[in-house]
């Protein structure tokens, strides 16, 4: 208890909106470090606005360590570039935690962007994100190329050059802070990919999307910190050869390519999403079809906890018995983006279920367009011993087709711990790291009626603790 000895103060209830301080009656009387402290809790825009308040605030500049320019709107590129430059000029802090640009920039702004990247590294940036995408324009060979020169001279890459390495020790420190690097619609050469992995030894997450120029993505010195690598639509990629013994997650969306991950003993999350239309050059690269892609990861399958995969990858696998290795799998997302693969999709799910005793969550993404869903060949699924752990099933893009109904009934029979079935008429897309559930445009009245009836019938067969949720619009 705090007992006041000889003062009579008003009770706290009477203090409402009354000045009992008296001495310091202005925010401007607060010392600079407290003002910076306050400023650091504002958004970048609000923080910049405080520099208009008075000379003192202007002098204080911005020391906010998060420079996120997403909210900065400018119709002309030149204006945008000028504004970013101005903010960096105002910046008085000693450390930038996050630097993020989301604006359609391309080659003409190169020298400015180079300057920003150098600035970010000089300030020991931990999270760097450049997103130069603009609506439909996803980038192209003429997009901005991530510069090599910010990392210094090339010979420093060679560990044998001990003297130049020592000389650049301080220089190295700057890149050591980087933990998270996202480059969208930014081009990158294979050389720079290698330099980044060599220089940024603390890098934990590396995301590349809509990238041109990266043909061979490899590193020669094992990267010990890298946990997550995400490659989405790297158009020129031919081969990935990664030495990252602590990699936990590999997310890949794009054409079937050689993806070689060596000794990643921690790999727990894998995503392999391939487009529907085959690449005309593919048969040349992989004469024996597509199964190679799965074979590349065969040694990792027993470790995976989460798998997101396109059905197309299983197209050439005849004997699913060889998949019987998912001893740690908890979450499976199967993307059936083409209606020809629906039957195959359910056969794959059933065989993975048999091979994955710890599977808890199953998600099936059905194709946006169904062709002839009323006359499909039966699934002919083999019986299995009761699955003890599967608790939740989600189906996106439900159209009441025979195969899906057959599979749902199969689940009721064998998934003895099933708690919840979530059936959604809405389809789902999973573009890069952005997952969306959206409404279909071609949701016709007869289809809706058909789905409703199917669900009504199915509901009658439910038993035990299974909860069925049906979202029809």
């Amino acid at each position, binding site marked *: 208890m705090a007992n006041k000895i000889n003062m009579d103060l008003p009770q706290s209830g009477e203090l409402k909106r009354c000045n009992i301080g008296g001495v310091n009656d202005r925010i401007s009387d607060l010392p600079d470090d407290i003002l910076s402290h306050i400023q650091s809790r504002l958004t970048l825009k609000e923080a910049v606005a405080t520099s*208009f308040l008075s000379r003192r605030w202007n002098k204080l500049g911005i020391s906010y360590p998060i420079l996120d320019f997403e909210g900065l709107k400018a119709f002309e590129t030149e204006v945008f570039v000028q504004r970013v430059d101005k903010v960096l000029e105002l910046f008085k802090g000693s450390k930038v935690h996050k630097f993020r640009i989301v604006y359609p920039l391309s080659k003409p702004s190169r020298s400015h962007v180079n300057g920003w990247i150098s600035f970010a590294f000089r300030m020991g940036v931990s999270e760097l994100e450049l997103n130069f995408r603009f609506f439909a324009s996803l980038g192209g060979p003429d997009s901005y190329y991530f510069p090599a020169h910010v990392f210094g001279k090339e010979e420093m890459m060679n560990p044998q050059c001990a003297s130049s390495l020592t000389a650049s020790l301080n220089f190295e420190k700057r890149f050591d802070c980087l933990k998270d690097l996202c480059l969208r619609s930014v081009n990158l050469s294979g050389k720079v990919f290698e330099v980044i992995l060599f220089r940024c030894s603390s890098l934990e997450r590396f995301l590349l999307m809509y990238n041109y120029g990266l043909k061979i993505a490899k590193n020669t010195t094992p990267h010990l910190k890298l946990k997550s690598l995400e490659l989405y639509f790297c158009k020129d990629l031919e081969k990935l050869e990664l030495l990252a013994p602590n990699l936990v997650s590999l997310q890949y969306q794009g054409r079937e390519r050689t993806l070689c991950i060596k000794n990643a003993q921690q790999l727990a999350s894998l995503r392999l999403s391939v487009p529907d239309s085959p690449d005309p050059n593919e048969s040349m690269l992989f004469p024996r079809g597509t199964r190679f892609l799965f074979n590349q990861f065969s040694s990792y399958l027993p470790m995976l906890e989460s798998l997101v995969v396109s059905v197309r990858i299983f197209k050439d696998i005849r004997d699913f018995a060889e998949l019987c290795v998912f001893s740690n799998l908890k979450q499976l997302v199967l993307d059936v983006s083409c209606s020809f693969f629906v039957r195959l999709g359910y056969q794959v799910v059933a065989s993975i279920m048999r091979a994955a005793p710890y599977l808890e969550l199953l998600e099936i993404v059905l194709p946006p367009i169904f062709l002839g869903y009323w006359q499909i060949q039966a699934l002919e699924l083999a019986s299995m011993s009761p699955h003890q752990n599967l608790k939740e099933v989600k189906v996106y893009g439900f159209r009441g087709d025979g195969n899906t109904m057959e599979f749902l009934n199969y689940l009721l029979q064998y998934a003895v711990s099933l708690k919840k079935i979530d059936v959604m008429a809405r389809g789902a897309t999973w573009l890069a790291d952005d997952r969306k559930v959206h409404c279909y445009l071609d949701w016709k009245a007869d289809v809706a009626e058909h789905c409703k009836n199917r669900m009504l019938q199915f509901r009658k067969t439910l038993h035990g603790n299974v909860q069925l949720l049906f979202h029809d619009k």
Partner: protein
Amino acid sequence: MASSSSSSLSRVVVKSSDNNLFVVNKKVASQSQLLKQCIDNMEEKGTNDVILIPLSNVTSNILTLVLEYCEKHADFADDDNNNQELKQWDHEFLKKFDYATLNSLTMAADYMVTKSLLNLCCQFIADSIKDLTVQQIRQIFDIKNDFTPQEEADIKNENAWAFR
């Protein structure tokens, strides 16, 4: 005055800048790193006397508020920080004051090294600045616009995107 027979102190006396004395329970005082440091130092020396800590920068009005905050937080010291009741209390506590009092409280929290109170005050002031125009911020916080008209025009021009 409270006296203690055990080897560790149970209470301290804190003196405000206007010479008022406050008897403060040790657990409450420990919310302030400044007071805690004083107590720890005295305990190391093995003194049994009640110690007097003068705070030359804090008036008794403000000190009362800081101690009210410390007392409440000492009650919750063993709880986790996400206690909803405490958060609600914090908010109600600061809502009562005008900005001048808030300034003094912020400075006292800084001086007495009561970090959670300092953070709370800064967040509260920052939240008040959000969504206001520059002119409104100047008014509420009584900030004098000391730019020349030319300077102001230049600054507005350069950073127009952030201007409201």
